[in-house]
Protein backbone atom coordinates (compact mmCIF):
# COMPACT_ATOMS: atom_id res chain seq x y z
CA UNK A 1 0.00 0.00 0.00
CA UNK A 2 1.50 3.36 -1.00
CA UNK A 3 0.10 5.03 2.11
CA UNK A 4 1.74 2.45 4.31
CA UNK A 5 5.11 2.81 2.64
CA UNK A 6 4.84 6.58 2.83
CA UNK A 7 4.15 6.28 6.53
CA UNK A 8 7.15 3.99 6.99
CA UNK A 9 9.38 6.44 5.10
CA UNK A 10 8.12 9.24 7.30
CA UNK A 11 8.86 7.24 10.42
CA UNK A 12 12.38 6.37 9.26
CA UNK A 13 13.04 9.97 8.24
CA UNK A 14 11.93 11.30 11.57
CA UNK A 15 14.04 8.72 13.36
CA UNK A 16 17.12 9.86 11.45
CA UNK A 17 16.30 13.50 12.12
CA UNK A 18 15.78 12.82 15.80
CA UNK A 19 19.14 11.18 16.32
CA UNK A 20 21.47 13.52 18.15
CA UNK A 21 25.21 13.22 18.11
CA UNK A 22 26.66 13.24 21.59
CA UNK A 23 29.08 16.04 22.31
CA UNK A 24 31.55 15.77 25.12
CA UNK A 25 32.28 19.03 26.86
CA UNK A 26 32.72 19.95 30.47
CA UNK A 27 30.25 22.41 31.92
CA UNK A 28 31.11 24.27 35.13
CA UNK A 29 28.21 25.42 37.28
CA UNK A 30 28.64 27.82 40.21
CA UNK A 31 26.35 26.90 43.13
CA UNK A 32 25.64 30.08 45.04
CA UNK A 33 24.40 28.51 48.26
CA UNK A 34 26.70 25.59 49.01
CA UNK A 35 29.92 27.26 47.81
CA UNK A 36 30.79 24.70 45.18
CA UNK A 37 31.32 24.34 41.45
CA UNK A 38 29.74 21.30 39.80
CA UNK A 39 31.70 19.84 36.89
CA UNK A 40 29.22 18.28 34.44
CA UNK A 41 30.02 15.99 31.53
CA UNK A 42 27.64 17.24 28.83
CA UNK A 43 27.74 13.98 26.85
CA UNK A 44 26.67 11.68 29.66
CA UNK A 45 24.76 14.37 31.55
CA UNK A 46 26.36 13.52 34.87
CA UNK A 47 28.10 15.53 37.57
CA UNK A 48 31.63 14.16 37.49
CA UNK A 49 33.05 16.29 40.28
CA UNK A 50 32.06 18.90 42.83
CA UNK A 51 34.73 21.43 43.74
CA UNK A 52 34.69 23.37 47.01
CA UNK A 53 35.25 27.06 46.27
CA UNK A 54 34.98 30.45 47.98
CA UNK A 55 31.83 31.88 49.50
CA UNK A 56 28.81 32.68 47.33
CA UNK A 57 30.18 31.76 43.91
CA UNK A 58 28.24 33.51 41.13
CA UNK A 59 29.78 34.80 37.89
CA UNK A 60 31.87 32.14 36.13
CA UNK A 61 33.84 32.20 32.90
CA UNK A 62 36.71 30.35 31.25
CA UNK A 63 39.94 31.40 29.55
CA UNK A 64 39.87 31.09 25.76
CA UNK A 65 42.34 28.20 25.84
CA UNK A 66 40.09 26.38 28.32
CA UNK A 67 42.85 26.05 30.92
CA UNK A 68 41.48 28.24 33.67
CA UNK A 69 38.10 28.96 35.19
CA UNK A 70 37.56 32.42 36.65
CA UNK A 71 34.98 32.51 39.39
CA UNK A 72 33.49 35.41 41.37
CA UNK A 73 33.51 34.38 45.03
CA UNK A 74 31.26 37.30 45.94
CA UNK A 75 31.35 37.06 49.73
CA UNK A 76 35.11 36.50 49.76
CA UNK A 77 35.59 39.65 47.65
CA UNK A 78 37.84 37.84 45.23
CA UNK A 79 38.02 36.09 41.89
CA UNK A 80 39.33 32.56 42.09
CA UNK A 81 41.32 30.95 39.32
CA UNK A 82 40.71 27.21 38.94
CA UNK A 83 42.88 24.89 36.86
CA UNK A 84 40.56 22.83 34.64
CA UNK A 85 42.99 19.88 34.58
CA UNK A 86 43.68 19.49 38.28
CA UNK A 87 40.47 21.19 39.48
CA UNK A 88 42.58 23.04 42.07
CA UNK A 89 42.32 26.71 42.93
CA UNK A 90 45.63 27.99 41.60
CA UNK A 91 45.30 31.69 42.26
CA UNK A 92 43.22 34.73 42.89
CA UNK A 93 42.58 37.98 41.06
CA UNK A 94 42.10 41.29 42.87
CA UNK A 95 38.48 41.93 42.08
CA UNK A 96 37.44 44.62 44.52
CA UNK A 97 34.52 44.01 46.89
CA UNK A 98 31.53 41.80 46.08
CA UNK A 99 32.26 40.80 42.50
CA UNK A 100 29.10 39.43 40.89
CA UNK A 101 29.52 39.15 37.18
CA UNK A 102 32.35 39.79 34.74
CA UNK A 103 33.30 39.54 31.12
CA UNK A 104 36.53 38.48 29.46
CA UNK A 105 37.91 40.64 26.63
CA UNK A 106 37.93 38.95 23.19
CA UNK A 107 41.76 38.72 23.33
CA UNK A 108 41.45 36.91 26.65
CA UNK A 109 43.83 39.28 28.46
CA UNK A 110 41.53 41.56 30.40
CA UNK A 111 38.72 40.88 32.80
CA UNK A 112 36.00 43.48 33.44
CA UNK A 113 34.34 42.95 36.80
CA UNK A 114 31.12 44.44 38.19
CA UNK A 115 31.50 45.20 41.93
CA UNK A 116 27.92 45.24 43.14
CA UNK A 117 28.49 47.00 46.49
CA UNK A 118 30.95 49.63 45.37
CA UNK A 119 29.29 50.85 42.19
CA UNK A 120 32.47 50.16 40.28
CA UNK A 121 33.67 48.23 37.29
CA UNK A 122 37.17 46.91 37.96
CA UNK A 123 39.48 46.25 35.01
CA UNK A 124 42.01 43.50 35.71
CA UNK A 125 45.00 42.42 33.67
CA UNK A 126 44.95 38.66 34.01
CA UNK A 127 48.62 37.97 33.39
CA UNK A 128 50.05 40.52 35.82
CA UNK A 129 47.01 40.28 38.13
CA UNK A 130 47.01 44.09 38.34
CA UNK A 131 44.02 46.36 38.56
CA UNK A 132 44.27 48.56 35.50
CA UNK A 133 41.34 50.81 36.30
CA UNK A 134 38.30 51.29 38.45
CA UNK A 135 35.43 52.87 36.60
CA UNK A 136 32.60 54.43 38.65
CA UNK A 137 29.24 53.42 37.24
CA UNK A 138 25.61 53.44 38.41
CA UNK A 139 24.27 51.90 41.59
CA UNK A 140 24.58 48.09 41.90
CA UNK A 141 26.43 47.25 38.70
CA UNK A 142 25.80 43.76 37.43
CA UNK A 143 25.45 42.90 33.74
CA UNK A 144 28.65 42.94 31.69
CA UNK A 145 28.90 42.67 27.92
CA UNK A 146 31.75 43.33 25.53
CA UNK A 147 31.66 44.04 21.80
CA UNK A 148 33.25 41.42 19.52
CA UNK A 149 36.01 43.90 18.57
CA UNK A 150 36.73 44.46 22.28
CA UNK A 151 36.43 48.26 21.95
CA UNK A 152 33.18 48.78 23.82
CA UNK A 153 32.13 47.37 27.14
CA UNK A 154 28.60 47.64 28.46
CA UNK A 155 27.75 47.54 32.14
CA UNK A 156 24.22 47.61 33.51
CA UNK A 157 23.42 49.04 36.93
CA UNK A 158 20.48 47.40 38.67
CA UNK A 159 19.26 50.40 40.64
CA UNK A 160 20.13 53.22 38.24
CA UNK A 161 18.39 51.24 35.48
CA UNK A 162 21.00 52.16 32.92
CA UNK A 163 23.30 50.52 30.44
CA UNK A 164 26.68 52.29 30.59
CA UNK A 165 28.76 52.13 27.41
CA UNK A 166 32.45 52.23 28.32
CA UNK A 167 35.34 52.81 25.95
CA UNK A 168 37.88 50.10 26.74
CA UNK A 169 40.87 52.26 25.72
CA UNK A 170 40.08 55.32 27.81
CA UNK A 171 38.05 53.45 30.47
CA UNK A 172 35.51 56.28 30.29
CA UNK A 173 31.74 56.04 30.05
CA UNK A 174 30.75 57.36 26.67
CA UNK A 175 26.99 56.80 26.74
CA UNK A 176 24.31 56.06 29.32
CA UNK A 177 21.16 54.42 28.01
CA UNK A 178 18.08 54.26 30.21
CA UNK A 179 16.43 50.83 30.17
CA UNK A 180 13.66 49.18 32.18
CA UNK A 181 13.79 48.41 35.86
CA UNK A 182 16.65 46.28 37.28
CA UNK A 183 18.82 45.51 34.27
CA UNK A 184 20.64 42.24 34.88
CA UNK A 185 22.57 41.23 31.82
CA UNK A 186 24.08 42.67 28.65
CA UNK A 187 24.89 40.63 25.56
CA UNK A 188 26.29 41.85 22.24
CA UNK A 189 25.11 40.40 18.96
CA UNK A 190 28.04 38.54 17.33
CA UNK A 191 28.23 41.20 14.57
CA UNK A 192 28.44 43.93 17.20
CA UNK A 193 25.43 45.82 15.82
CA UNK A 194 23.21 45.51 18.88
CA UNK A 195 23.36 45.07 22.63
CA UNK A 196 20.55 43.16 24.35
CA UNK A 197 19.90 44.22 27.92
CA UNK A 198 17.48 42.28 30.12
CA UNK A 199 15.42 44.03 32.80
CA UNK A 200 14.37 41.73 35.62
CA UNK A 201 11.59 43.82 37.19
CA UNK A 202 10.63 45.60 33.99
CA UNK A 203 10.10 42.20 32.40
CA UNK A 204 11.62 43.30 29.09
CA UNK A 205 14.73 42.99 26.97
CA UNK A 206 15.88 46.29 25.45
CA UNK A 207 17.64 46.04 22.12
CA UNK A 208 20.13 48.91 21.92
CA UNK A 209 21.54 49.93 18.58
CA UNK A 210 25.32 50.05 19.00
CA UNK A 211 25.80 52.77 16.39
CA UNK A 212 23.23 55.25 17.68
CA UNK A 213 23.33 53.98 21.29
CA UNK A 214 19.56 54.22 21.50
CA UNK A 215 16.93 51.62 22.37
CA UNK A 216 15.54 50.48 19.02
CA UNK A 217 13.19 47.79 20.30
CA UNK A 218 11.77 46.42 23.50
CA UNK A 219 10.94 42.72 23.68
CA UNK A 220 8.11 41.75 26.00
CA UNK A 221 7.11 38.28 27.12
CA UNK A 222 3.77 36.70 27.75
CA UNK A 223 3.11 33.19 28.99
CA UNK A 224 -0.44 31.94 29.19
CA UNK A 225 -1.41 31.13 32.76
CA UNK A 226 1.45 33.09 34.36
CA UNK A 227 1.11 36.51 35.93
CA UNK A 228 3.42 39.07 34.39
CA UNK A 229 5.39 39.60 37.64
CA UNK A 230 6.63 36.03 37.39
CA UNK A 231 8.34 36.85 34.11
CA UNK A 232 11.75 38.23 35.03
CA UNK A 233 14.32 38.20 32.23
CA UNK A 234 17.88 37.61 33.42
CA UNK A 235 20.51 35.77 31.37
CA UNK A 236 20.66 36.37 27.61
CA UNK A 237 22.65 34.45 24.99
CA UNK A 238 22.69 34.89 21.22
CA UNK A 239 23.76 32.12 18.83
CA UNK A 240 27.07 32.52 16.98
CA UNK A 241 25.20 32.97 13.69
CA UNK A 242 23.26 35.80 15.33
CA UNK A 243 19.87 34.39 14.39
CA UNK A 244 18.38 33.30 17.69
CA UNK A 245 18.51 34.67 21.20
CA UNK A 246 17.74 32.78 24.40
CA UNK A 247 16.41 34.71 27.39
CA UNK A 248 16.18 33.13 30.86
CA UNK A 249 12.92 34.26 32.48
CA UNK A 250 13.63 33.65 36.18
CA UNK A 251 10.61 32.48 38.21
CA UNK A 252 8.61 31.89 35.00
CA UNK A 253 10.68 28.68 34.77
CA UNK A 254 10.99 29.20 31.05
CA UNK A 255 13.65 30.17 28.54
CA UNK A 256 12.31 32.33 25.72
CA UNK A 257 13.60 31.76 22.21
CA UNK A 258 13.61 35.03 20.28
CA UNK A 259 14.09 35.63 16.56
CA UNK A 260 16.77 38.35 16.39
CA UNK A 261 15.45 39.84 13.15
CA UNK A 262 11.76 40.13 13.97
CA UNK A 263 12.23 40.29 17.78
CA UNK A 264 9.31 37.88 18.09
CA UNK A 265 9.32 35.22 20.77
CA UNK A 266 9.18 31.92 18.93
CA UNK A 267 8.90 29.60 21.86
CA UNK A 268 9.01 29.26 25.61
CA UNK A 269 11.03 26.27 26.76
CA UNK A 270 10.07 24.76 30.12
CA UNK A 271 13.08 24.33 32.41
CA UNK A 272 13.55 24.13 36.19
CA UNK A 273 12.57 26.75 38.76
CA UNK A 274 14.01 30.27 38.74
CA UNK A 275 16.14 29.97 35.66
CA UNK A 276 19.06 32.38 35.91
CA UNK A 277 22.01 32.15 33.50
CA UNK A 278 22.67 30.41 30.20
CA UNK A 279 25.66 29.05 28.29
CA UNK A 280 26.10 27.43 24.89
CA UNK A 281 28.27 24.40 24.31
CA UNK A 282 31.10 25.35 21.88
CA UNK A 283 29.46 23.40 19.05
CA UNK A 284 26.33 25.52 19.61
CA UNK A 285 24.16 22.40 19.62
CA UNK A 286 23.07 22.75 23.22
CA UNK A 287 22.32 25.62 25.56
CA UNK A 288 22.44 25.01 29.29
CA UNK A 289 20.30 26.88 31.83
CA UNK A 290 20.90 27.11 35.58
CA UNK A 291 17.73 26.70 37.63
CA UNK A 292 18.35 28.19 41.07
CA UNK A 293 15.38 27.03 43.10
CA UNK A 294 15.10 23.48 41.76
CA UNK A 295 18.89 23.03 42.09
CA UNK A 296 19.40 21.71 38.60
CA UNK A 297 20.50 22.61 35.11
CA UNK A 298 18.55 21.94 31.91
CA UNK A 299 20.02 21.05 28.52
CA UNK A 300 18.08 22.56 25.62
CA UNK A 301 18.63 21.32 22.07
CA UNK A 302 19.32 24.41 19.95
CA UNK A 303 18.13 22.87 16.66
CA UNK A 304 14.68 21.94 17.97
CA UNK A 305 14.48 24.19 21.05
CA UNK A 306 13.29 21.21 23.05
CA UNK A 307 14.41 20.62 26.63
CA UNK A 308 16.37 17.37 26.59
CA UNK A 309 17.46 16.66 30.12
CA UNK A 310 17.69 18.21 33.58
CA UNK A 311 20.47 17.29 35.99
CA UNK A 312 20.64 17.98 39.71
CA UNK A 313 23.73 19.97 40.69
CA UNK A 314 24.58 21.82 43.92
CA UNK A 315 22.44 24.21 45.95
CA UNK A 316 21.18 27.21 43.99
CA UNK A 317 23.07 27.01 40.72
CA UNK A 318 23.77 30.56 39.50
CA UNK A 319 26.22 30.71 36.58
CA UNK A 320 27.44 28.24 33.98
CA UNK A 321 30.30 28.09 31.50
CA UNK A 322 31.33 25.33 29.09
CA UNK A 323 34.93 24.45 28.28
CA UNK A 324 35.95 24.87 24.64
CA UNK A 325 37.34 21.31 24.48
Amino acid sequence: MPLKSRFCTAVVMSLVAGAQPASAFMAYVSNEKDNTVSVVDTASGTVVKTLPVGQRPRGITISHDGKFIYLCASDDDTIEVIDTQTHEIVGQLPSGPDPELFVLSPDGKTLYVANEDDNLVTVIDIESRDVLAEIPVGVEPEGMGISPDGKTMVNTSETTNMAHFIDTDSHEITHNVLVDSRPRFAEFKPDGSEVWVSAEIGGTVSVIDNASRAVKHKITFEIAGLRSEAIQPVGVRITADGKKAYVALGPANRVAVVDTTTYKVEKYVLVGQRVWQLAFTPDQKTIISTNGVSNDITFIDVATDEPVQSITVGAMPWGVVVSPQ
Partner: protein
Amino acid sequence: MSLHTQTTSLHPHPPRGFTPRQYLACLSGIMIREGLRFLNQRERFVSSLVRPLLWLFVFAAGFRQVLGVSIIPPYRTYVLYEVYITPGLAGMILLFSGMQSSLSMVYDREMGNMRTLLVSPFPRWFLLVSKLFAGVAVSVVQVYAFFAIAWFWNVRPPPVGYLLVLPALFLGGMMLCSLGMFLSSMIRQLENFAGIMNFVIFPMYFASSALYPLWRIQESSPLLFRICQGNPFTYAVELIRFALYGRIEWMSLGIVFGFTVLFLGGAIFAYDPAHGLLGRKRDTGGNG
Protein backbone atom coordinates in the same frame (compact mmCIF):
# COMPACT_ATOMS: atom_id res chain seq x y z
CA MET B 1 -19.18 -14.46 5.94
CA SER B 2 -18.56 -16.17 2.66
CA LEU B 3 -15.14 -17.18 3.78
CA HIS B 4 -16.38 -19.30 6.57
CA THR B 5 -19.21 -20.85 4.61
CA GLN B 6 -16.70 -21.82 1.97
CA THR B 7 -14.47 -23.44 4.52
CA THR B 8 -17.36 -25.23 6.09
CA SER B 9 -18.70 -26.50 2.78
CA LEU B 10 -15.30 -27.85 1.83
CA HIS B 11 -15.03 -29.64 5.13
CA PRO B 12 -18.46 -30.65 6.33
CA HIS B 13 -16.77 -32.41 9.23
CA PRO B 14 -14.05 -30.06 10.35
CA PRO B 15 -10.70 -31.75 10.37
CA ARG B 16 -8.53 -31.62 13.47
CA GLY B 17 -5.85 -29.38 12.00
CA PHE B 18 -5.86 -26.27 9.88
CA THR B 19 -3.00 -24.89 7.87
CA PRO B 20 -1.50 -21.58 9.00
CA ARG B 21 -2.87 -20.12 5.78
CA GLN B 22 -6.38 -21.03 6.82
CA TYR B 23 -5.84 -19.54 10.25
CA LEU B 24 -4.63 -16.38 8.58
CA ALA B 25 -7.69 -16.29 6.34
CA CYS B 26 -9.90 -16.58 9.38
CA LEU B 27 -7.99 -13.83 11.21
CA SER B 28 -8.10 -11.49 8.24
CA GLY B 29 -11.80 -12.17 7.80
CA ILE B 30 -12.49 -11.12 11.36
CA MET B 31 -10.18 -8.14 11.10
CA ILE B 32 -11.78 -6.97 7.87
CA ARG B 33 -15.17 -7.18 9.48
CA GLU B 34 -14.02 -5.17 12.47
CA GLY B 35 -12.30 -2.69 10.16
CA LEU B 36 -15.43 -2.30 8.03
CA ARG B 37 -17.54 -1.83 11.09
CA PHE B 38 -15.13 0.84 12.26
CA LEU B 39 -15.08 2.58 8.88
CA ASN B 40 -18.84 2.55 8.65
CA GLN B 41 -19.14 4.19 12.03
CA ARG B 42 -17.26 7.43 11.53
CA GLU B 43 -19.05 8.92 14.48
CA ARG B 44 -17.50 6.25 16.62
CA PHE B 45 -14.05 7.24 15.43
CA VAL B 46 -14.72 10.91 16.02
CA SER B 47 -16.26 10.32 19.41
CA SER B 48 -13.42 8.07 20.47
CA LEU B 49 -11.07 10.95 19.67
CA VAL B 50 -13.17 13.71 21.15
CA ARG B 51 -13.04 12.19 24.63
CA PRO B 52 -9.23 12.20 25.08
CA LEU B 53 -8.91 15.48 23.20
CA LEU B 54 -11.32 17.16 25.58
CA TRP B 55 -9.16 15.95 28.43
CA LEU B 56 -6.06 17.22 26.69
CA PHE B 57 -7.38 20.60 25.60
CA VAL B 58 -9.72 21.46 28.47
CA PHE B 59 -8.84 19.47 31.56
CA ALA B 60 -5.06 19.64 31.14
CA ALA B 61 -5.21 23.35 30.36
CA GLY B 62 -6.33 24.09 33.92
CA PHE B 63 -3.54 22.01 35.40
CA ARG B 64 -0.63 23.22 33.30
CA GLN B 65 1.48 24.25 36.26
CA VAL B 66 0.56 21.27 38.43
CA LEU B 67 3.64 19.21 37.71
CA GLY B 68 7.16 20.38 37.19
CA VAL B 69 8.27 20.14 40.82
CA SER B 70 9.87 16.77 40.48
CA ILE B 71 11.23 14.89 37.50
CA ILE B 72 9.99 11.30 37.38
CA PRO B 73 11.20 8.65 34.95
CA PRO B 74 10.90 8.24 32.01
CA TYR B 75 10.98 12.04 31.72
CA ARG B 76 14.46 13.48 31.79
CA THR B 77 13.39 17.05 32.29
CA TYR B 78 10.36 19.06 33.40
CA VAL B 79 7.13 18.39 31.52
CA LEU B 80 3.83 20.19 31.30
CA TYR B 81 0.71 18.45 32.53
CA GLU B 82 -0.55 17.80 29.02
CA VAL B 83 2.64 15.90 28.27
CA TYR B 84 2.16 13.88 31.43
CA ILE B 85 -1.42 12.82 30.76
CA THR B 86 -0.95 11.93 27.08
CA PRO B 87 0.06 8.28 27.78
CA GLY B 88 -2.84 8.06 30.23
CA LEU B 89 -5.20 9.31 27.55
CA ALA B 90 -3.80 6.74 25.13
CA GLY B 91 -4.64 4.18 27.81
CA MET B 92 -8.09 5.72 28.09
CA ILE B 93 -8.70 5.16 24.38
CA LEU B 94 -7.65 1.52 24.75
CA LEU B 95 -9.84 1.12 27.83
CA PHE B 96 -12.96 2.61 26.31
CA SER B 97 -12.42 0.87 23.04
CA GLY B 98 -11.77 -2.45 24.77
CA MET B 99 -15.04 -2.04 26.63
CA GLN B 100 -16.74 -0.91 23.45
CA SER B 101 -15.72 -4.07 21.69
CA SER B 102 -17.09 -6.02 24.61
CA LEU B 103 -20.27 -4.04 24.19
CA SER B 104 -20.32 -5.03 20.56
CA MET B 105 -20.04 -8.67 21.60
CA VAL B 106 -23.10 -8.36 23.76
CA TYR B 107 -24.83 -6.76 20.81
CA ASP B 108 -23.60 -9.48 18.49
CA ARG B 109 -24.96 -12.04 20.86
CA GLU B 110 -28.31 -10.37 21.07
CA MET B 111 -28.52 -10.00 17.30
CA GLY B 112 -27.27 -13.49 16.55
CA ASN B 113 -24.14 -12.43 14.67
CA MET B 114 -22.10 -14.05 17.36
CA ARG B 115 -23.43 -17.43 16.44
CA THR B 116 -22.15 -16.98 12.87
CA LEU B 117 -18.73 -16.40 14.27
CA LEU B 118 -18.75 -19.12 16.86
CA VAL B 119 -20.03 -21.87 14.55
CA SER B 120 -16.89 -21.50 12.50
CA PRO B 121 -14.87 -24.73 12.64
CA PHE B 122 -11.78 -22.97 13.94
CA PRO B 123 -10.94 -23.48 17.60
CA ARG B 124 -12.93 -21.26 19.86
CA TRP B 125 -9.83 -19.69 21.45
CA PHE B 126 -8.50 -18.74 18.04
CA LEU B 127 -11.75 -17.05 17.09
CA LEU B 128 -11.79 -15.10 20.32
CA VAL B 129 -8.14 -14.07 20.07
CA SER B 130 -8.70 -13.01 16.46
CA LYS B 131 -11.67 -10.97 17.52
CA LEU B 132 -9.60 -9.38 20.28
CA PHE B 133 -6.74 -8.71 17.94
CA ALA B 134 -9.07 -7.02 15.48
CA GLY B 135 -10.54 -4.87 18.25
CA VAL B 136 -7.11 -3.87 19.52
CA ALA B 137 -5.88 -3.03 16.01
CA VAL B 138 -8.78 -0.63 15.60
CA SER B 139 -8.10 1.06 18.94
CA VAL B 140 -4.38 1.36 18.22
CA VAL B 141 -5.26 3.27 15.05
CA GLN B 142 -7.32 5.61 17.22
CA VAL B 143 -4.41 6.10 19.61
CA TYR B 144 -2.09 7.04 16.77
CA ALA B 145 -4.65 9.52 15.46
CA PHE B 146 -4.73 10.99 18.96
CA PHE B 147 -0.92 11.16 19.11
CA ALA B 148 -0.90 12.95 15.76
CA ILE B 149 -3.26 15.65 17.07
CA ALA B 150 -1.35 15.86 20.36
CA TRP B 151 1.82 16.50 18.36
CA PHE B 152 0.33 19.76 17.16
CA TRP B 153 -0.50 20.52 20.79
CA ASN B 154 3.24 20.37 21.48
CA VAL B 155 3.20 16.92 23.02
CA ARG B 156 6.20 15.60 21.14
CA PRO B 157 7.87 12.43 22.38
CA PRO B 158 11.06 11.35 20.59
CA PRO B 159 10.34 9.88 17.11
CA VAL B 160 11.61 6.44 18.14
CA GLY B 161 8.97 6.41 20.88
CA TYR B 162 6.17 6.30 18.31
CA LEU B 163 7.60 3.03 17.04
CA LEU B 164 8.35 1.49 20.43
CA VAL B 165 4.94 2.34 21.81
CA LEU B 166 3.26 0.10 19.22
CA PRO B 167 3.90 -3.23 21.02
CA ALA B 168 3.08 -1.56 24.34
CA LEU B 169 -0.24 -0.34 22.96
CA PHE B 170 -0.99 -3.79 21.58
CA LEU B 171 -0.25 -5.55 24.82
CA GLY B 172 -2.12 -3.00 26.92
CA GLY B 173 -5.00 -3.14 24.45
CA MET B 174 -5.06 -6.94 24.57
CA MET B 175 -5.27 -6.84 28.35
CA LEU B 176 -8.14 -4.37 28.39
CA CYS B 177 -9.98 -5.97 25.47
CA SER B 178 -9.77 -9.42 27.01
CA LEU B 179 -11.03 -7.99 30.27
CA GLY B 180 -13.93 -6.51 28.28
CA MET B 181 -14.53 -9.83 26.58
CA PHE B 182 -14.52 -11.64 29.88
CA LEU B 183 -17.01 -9.14 31.30
CA SER B 184 -19.16 -9.35 28.18
CA SER B 185 -19.72 -13.02 28.85
CA MET B 186 -21.39 -12.02 32.08
CA ILE B 187 -23.60 -9.25 30.77
CA ARG B 188 -27.06 -10.41 29.88
CA GLN B 189 -28.29 -7.36 28.02
CA LEU B 190 -26.97 -4.34 26.26
CA GLU B 191 -28.56 -2.05 28.81
CA ASN B 192 -26.32 -3.44 31.51
CA PHE B 193 -23.36 -1.82 29.87
CA ALA B 194 -23.85 1.31 31.95
CA GLY B 195 -22.91 -0.80 34.96
CA ILE B 196 -19.61 -1.69 33.36
CA MET B 197 -19.07 1.99 32.73
CA ASN B 198 -19.54 2.92 36.39
CA PHE B 199 -18.04 -0.12 38.05
CA VAL B 200 -15.14 -0.89 35.76
CA ILE B 201 -14.13 1.90 33.39
CA PHE B 202 -14.28 4.91 35.68
CA PRO B 203 -12.66 3.32 38.75
CA MET B 204 -9.95 1.80 36.59
CA TYR B 205 -9.26 5.09 34.88
CA PHE B 206 -9.33 7.41 37.87
CA ALA B 207 -7.55 5.13 40.34
CA SER B 208 -4.44 4.87 38.22
CA SER B 209 -1.34 6.83 37.26
CA ALA B 210 -3.12 8.13 34.15
CA LEU B 211 -4.01 11.52 35.63
CA TYR B 212 -1.48 12.04 38.40
CA PRO B 213 1.88 10.52 39.22
CA LEU B 214 1.65 7.92 41.97
CA TRP B 215 3.92 9.90 44.31
CA ARG B 216 1.42 12.71 44.26
CA ILE B 217 -1.44 10.31 45.06
CA GLN B 218 0.63 8.84 47.87
CA GLU B 219 1.01 12.31 49.37
CA SER B 220 -2.73 12.76 49.65
CA SER B 221 -3.93 9.24 50.43
CA PRO B 222 -1.83 6.14 51.13
CA LEU B 223 -4.94 3.97 50.69
CA LEU B 224 -5.68 5.37 47.26
CA PHE B 225 -2.01 4.88 46.43
CA ARG B 226 -2.33 1.19 47.26
CA ILE B 227 -5.49 0.88 45.20
CA CYS B 228 -3.72 2.50 42.26
CA GLN B 229 -0.81 0.11 42.72
CA GLY B 230 -3.18 -2.84 42.49
CA ASN B 231 -4.87 -1.54 39.37
CA PRO B 232 -3.63 -3.28 36.22
CA PHE B 233 -4.54 -0.19 34.20
CA THR B 234 -1.77 1.73 36.03
CA TYR B 235 0.79 -0.68 34.58
CA ALA B 236 -0.66 -0.47 31.10
CA VAL B 237 -0.33 3.33 31.29
CA GLU B 238 3.23 3.17 32.65
CA LEU B 239 4.21 0.64 29.98
CA ILE B 240 2.90 3.04 27.32
CA ARG B 241 4.53 6.05 29.02
CA PHE B 242 7.98 4.46 29.15
CA ALA B 243 7.73 3.02 25.64
CA LEU B 244 6.74 6.43 24.29
CA TYR B 245 10.05 7.74 25.63
CA GLY B 246 12.05 4.85 24.23
CA ARG B 247 12.31 2.79 27.40
CA ILE B 248 10.98 -0.55 28.61
CA GLU B 249 9.50 -0.75 32.08
CA TRP B 250 10.00 -4.43 32.85
CA MET B 251 7.79 -4.63 35.89
CA SER B 252 4.83 -3.09 34.04
CA LEU B 253 5.52 -5.34 31.08
CA GLY B 254 5.42 -8.43 33.29
CA ILE B 255 2.27 -7.36 35.12
CA VAL B 256 0.40 -6.38 31.97
CA PHE B 257 1.42 -9.62 30.33
CA GLY B 258 0.28 -11.61 33.35
CA PHE B 259 -3.10 -9.90 33.49
CA THR B 260 -3.54 -10.37 29.73
CA VAL B 261 -3.04 -14.11 30.14
CA LEU B 262 -5.41 -14.14 33.10
CA PHE B 263 -8.22 -12.16 31.45
CA LEU B 264 -7.81 -13.96 28.14
CA GLY B 265 -7.92 -17.31 29.89
CA GLY B 266 -11.05 -16.20 31.70
CA ALA B 267 -12.68 -15.04 28.48
CA ILE B 268 -11.84 -18.27 26.64
CA PHE B 269 -13.16 -20.25 29.55
CA ALA B 270 -16.33 -18.17 29.71
CA TYR B 271 -17.01 -18.54 26.01
CA ASP B 272 -16.20 -22.24 25.94
CA PRO B 273 -19.48 -24.11 25.33
CA ALA B 274 -18.19 -27.06 27.37
CA HIS B 275 -17.77 -24.97 30.49
CA GLY B 276 -20.57 -22.77 29.65
CA LEU B 277 -20.67 -19.43 31.43
CA LEU B 278 -22.21 -18.44 28.12
CA GLY B 279 -24.15 -21.64 27.71
CA ARG B 280 -26.02 -21.07 30.90
CA LYS B 281 -27.23 -17.79 29.58
CA ARG B 282 -28.29 -19.16 26.26
CA ASP B 283 -31.88 -18.27 26.98
CA THR B 284 -31.08 -14.57 26.48
CA GLY B 285 -28.72 -15.08 23.55
CA GLY B 286 -29.50 -16.00 19.99
CA ASN B 287 -32.05 -14.29 17.83
CA GLY B 288 -34.56 -13.53 20.37
